[in-house]
């Protein structure tokens, strides 16, 4: 035991950043193994946007020709919104998983180690981001098969936006889960927040169709700018200032999400 102890202490000669990344990767590998053991929910999250793609997108064809729609064909308008929706709903509900981990005592077991709190959080968020990445790429490829035409840079920019959104919302969902520690409380909270954010983001239909008061309201919603950025990217309009605004909004949300969640992980009652 003493030799092991010395060996362990010798292994602690990392810088804090190295240790944080190491803890994040350890947590990521652990979470991935658990994920592959229960992959059913990935299928569920993936099937939902594909259903939108198959059953809702065809309706847009006539609507687009009706006027007030932003430039582009129906797929270029609808698929970016769908990708942002995937980023939102694919990560917003991960907080349920952390509540069961808390109940099993896994969170406390990990918090009593010297592991970095940010590392423990990032490991989970990286897992969620990887899942999002796979889903976003698959969705885009299927949409291309349906008839979508998108420049590669635009698609990559949009996937980047989706990932930033995923980091933000997964972090906030973990924070809310650890804060509430109850599925019964978390569900209504997430629904209460996500519905107005969804309706005011122009994900399903562009906000250019909205009356002036609703359009103004949507401009206060950062998700609306992220959707606009994704649509501009899909059109290949890379000089459009909306892309920059959307990226800044998504990056700011990710930073806020990580900061809030790290704080909650550090809290004594987490």
């Amino acid at each position: 035991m003493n030799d092991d102890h010395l060996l362990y202490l010798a292994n602690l000669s990392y810088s804090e950043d190295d240790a944080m990344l190491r803890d994040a990767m350890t947590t990521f590998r652990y979470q991935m193994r658990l994920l592959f053991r229960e992959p059913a929910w990935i299928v569920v999250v993936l099937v939902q946007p594909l259903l939108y793609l198959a059953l809702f997108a065809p309706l847009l064809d006539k609507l687009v020709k009706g006027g007030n729609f932003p430039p582009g064909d129906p797929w270029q308008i609808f698929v970016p919104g769908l990708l942002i929706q995937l980023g939102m709903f694919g990560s917003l509900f991960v907080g349920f998983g952390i509540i069961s981990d808390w109940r099993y005592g896994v969170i406390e077991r990990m918090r009593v180690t010297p592991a970095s709190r940010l590392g423990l959080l990032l490991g989970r968020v990286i897992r969620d981001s990887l899942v999002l990445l796979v889903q976003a790429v698959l969705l885009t490829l299927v949409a291309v098969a349906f008839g979508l035409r998108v420049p590669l840079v635009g698609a990559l920019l949009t996937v980047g936006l989706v990932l930033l959104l995923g980091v933000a919302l997964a972090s906030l969902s973990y924070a809310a889960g650890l804060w509430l520690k109850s599925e019964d409380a978390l569900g209504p909270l997430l629904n209460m927040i996500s519905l107005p954010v969804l309706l005011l983001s122009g994900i399903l239909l562009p906000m250019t169709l909205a009356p002036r008061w609703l359009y103004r309201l949507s401009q206060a919603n950062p998700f609306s700018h992220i959707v606009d950025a994704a649509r501009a990217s899909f059109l290949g309009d890379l000089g459009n200032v909306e892309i920059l605004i959307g990226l800044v909004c998504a990056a700011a949300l990710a930073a806020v999400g990580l900061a809030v969640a790290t704080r909650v992980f550090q809290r004594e009652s987490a």
Partner: protein
Amino acid sequence: MIQARGLSRTFKTKDATVEAVRAIDFDVAPGEIVGLLGPNGAGKTTTQRMLATLLLPTAGTATVAGCDLLADPVGVRRQLGYVSQSGGTNPMAKVDEELCTQGELYGLSRAVARDRARALRDQLDLHELGGRLIKTLSGGQKRRLDVALGLVHGPKLLFLDEPSTGLDPQARANLWAHIKTVRDRDRATILLTTHYLDEADALCDRILIIDHGKIVAEGSPAELKRKISGDLVTFELPDDGISRATELLAARAKDVTPVDGGLRVTVENGEAQALPLMRELDAAGIKVAALAIRHPSLDDVFLTLTGRSLRDSPEA
């Protein structure tokens, strides 16, 4: 190994302020197994969680394994193994996944963590279970895995929170043997909480009896029993002899208590005094049908100190 001074913790709710731990002082020497004994809600787990850096003390200080609890919590975590009451494993994870992950979070390399997992499985009778899902383990196996997770980095100090709660008698005895081995083989210091009298008696070198957030007594199980109580002698008597026997025994015993079918008396040395007392009863014409001598239990100690039985405590 542990020095706690004036350690306190208060919880505030909307309606009330609860003083869970009230300015307790205690020391734990290297290599000791020390038990915090008391009913649920007495403050045992709160004390342990403060010392494990999971809760901030409201007041007081402590040094744990040479590290200041408040100034160097990460130092404390490096030296400490902690096994909570709920254990802390995911039922869908495999045994070695949990052991290796925990080892890596303590800073072990992947290869060392794997070796350590194998060694701990061997030491704790989990030999071939490395690839098993945790949900398929028995209660005893799962609890031994919890202990292994606390030992994965070879800590000098191990905290066990209610280690045998929910285990059947055979699994408990088996776990106790392993806990003693950890101390004897690894020279680890162990601080455990329990509300089981037999567990405290069987495992602990020293016991801190804790009630309403305060330490009300401390000592080895034998010292505590010797200091506070005598031996208990129970006489089975005919109904018509009980009142006379009470008068006769009251003059010779510390305490006389009616029990079903007779009387129980507390005397200094049960083995030496039981037969003379029986002869006196016999000489007074009171026939003793049976007698039993019992050494005091920790419950008797708790009863003497707090006025209520640990077994009957509503929270226990």
